[in-house]
């Protein structure tokens, strides 16, 4: 199964980027083989609609689970519609997060955890 983790760089040892829509990279990990693919997030600097654009990229990669820090309302709505499971509040490295997920340490998130535009930095606003 493909697990998408939001990350600050494009490696399996990268630290988790806590923002979903505006994270730097998606690291998509195959949970059986631990093989991974790093996908730069084209939405990270979007002027609007970043969560939806990011969700689209994740859905197109065929991921079934997203591990991240926080997720906003539009991204939550889009990911849920695509049947993608969302886990928030995750920190540490990509590898650790996937291993914890495999052990069943995480609980699925049932609602958005932040409001609109939470991931926009002050200078971008």
């Amino acid at each position, binding site marked *: 199964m493909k697990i998408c983790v939001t990350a600050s760089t494009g490696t399996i040892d990268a630290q988790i980027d806590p923002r979903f829509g505006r994270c730097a990279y998606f690291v998509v990990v195959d949970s059986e083989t631990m093989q991974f693919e790093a996908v730069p997030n084209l939405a990270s600097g979007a002027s609007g609609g970043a969560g*939806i654009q990011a*969700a*689209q990229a994740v*859905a197109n990669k065929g991921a079934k689970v997203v591990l991240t820090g926080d997720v906003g309302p539009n991204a939550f709505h*889009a990911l849920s519609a695509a049947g993608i499971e969302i886990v928030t509040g995750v920190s540490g490295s990509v590898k650790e997060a996937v291993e914890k997920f495999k052990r069943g340490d995480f609980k699925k998130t049932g609602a958005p955890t932040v409001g609109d535009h939470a991931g926009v930095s002050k200078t971008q606003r």
Partner: protein
Amino acid sequence: MIVTVASGKGGTGKTSVAVNLALSIENVQLLDCDVEEPNAHLFLHPELLKTEPVYTFIPFVNQELCDHCGVCSKFCQYHALFTSPNNVLVFPELCHSCGGCMIVCPKKAITETKNRIGKLNFCAAEDLTLVYGELEIGKPMSVPIIKAVKKQMDKSKNVIIDSPPGTSCPFIETVRGSDFCVLVTEPTPFGLHDLKITVQVLRKMIVPFGVVVNRAGVGDNKVYEYCQQENIPILLEIPYQRKIAELYSRGIPFSQEMPEWTEKFQTLYSDIGKLVKK
């Protein structure tokens, strides 16, 4: 002549200038384009003649025809469409109503549907007509309402437009096509800072403009120095005066109680006319 009253900084006195100017001359249509918080009607106490809803068009996806190919989502610059393996979601608040998704859809599965975002109010106060737009609470895009207000423009009249504050899309949409822009500012560092930005925008748009200094007497001389350096005419000064503020707080345009101001606003209008002809 179409004259827009604008300012970068909020609360400098745009509506006061627009309303007093409108009341001082004849044959006026006043358009309140500050659709997020229109307030010219609070000073004119007009009769409301009718209201009309304002809609934008958003895509409607026929899920039976749609094969979830994702072309529409990929095309949309505003990310208003999300394609999942079994349906397409529309996010109306992100849609800019360009209609591109309908054109690119290979299955012709997308049609337009109406999305109500606000209304127009048509009013009359004696021989003055007022049209003001009102954006619905929670709707993020004011430009379509501003366009709808401007569509009601009657060019046989002296058109005065009250602009929203700021220098972004709503202001640009409001001032576009005006013969002149009156920039109301206050002589403070904040007033000057935002005046400079507005001047840059208007120079790019090639709309002639002049400055009205409101609350003259507060702050410093920097607005005057800047206008002199940049060769910007100062058309009128309105002093920082308790009586003007009191009348404002009671919803009374000050020229109605201080008749000497009617003449000053008439002079302002004829000065604008001369600058437009130049």
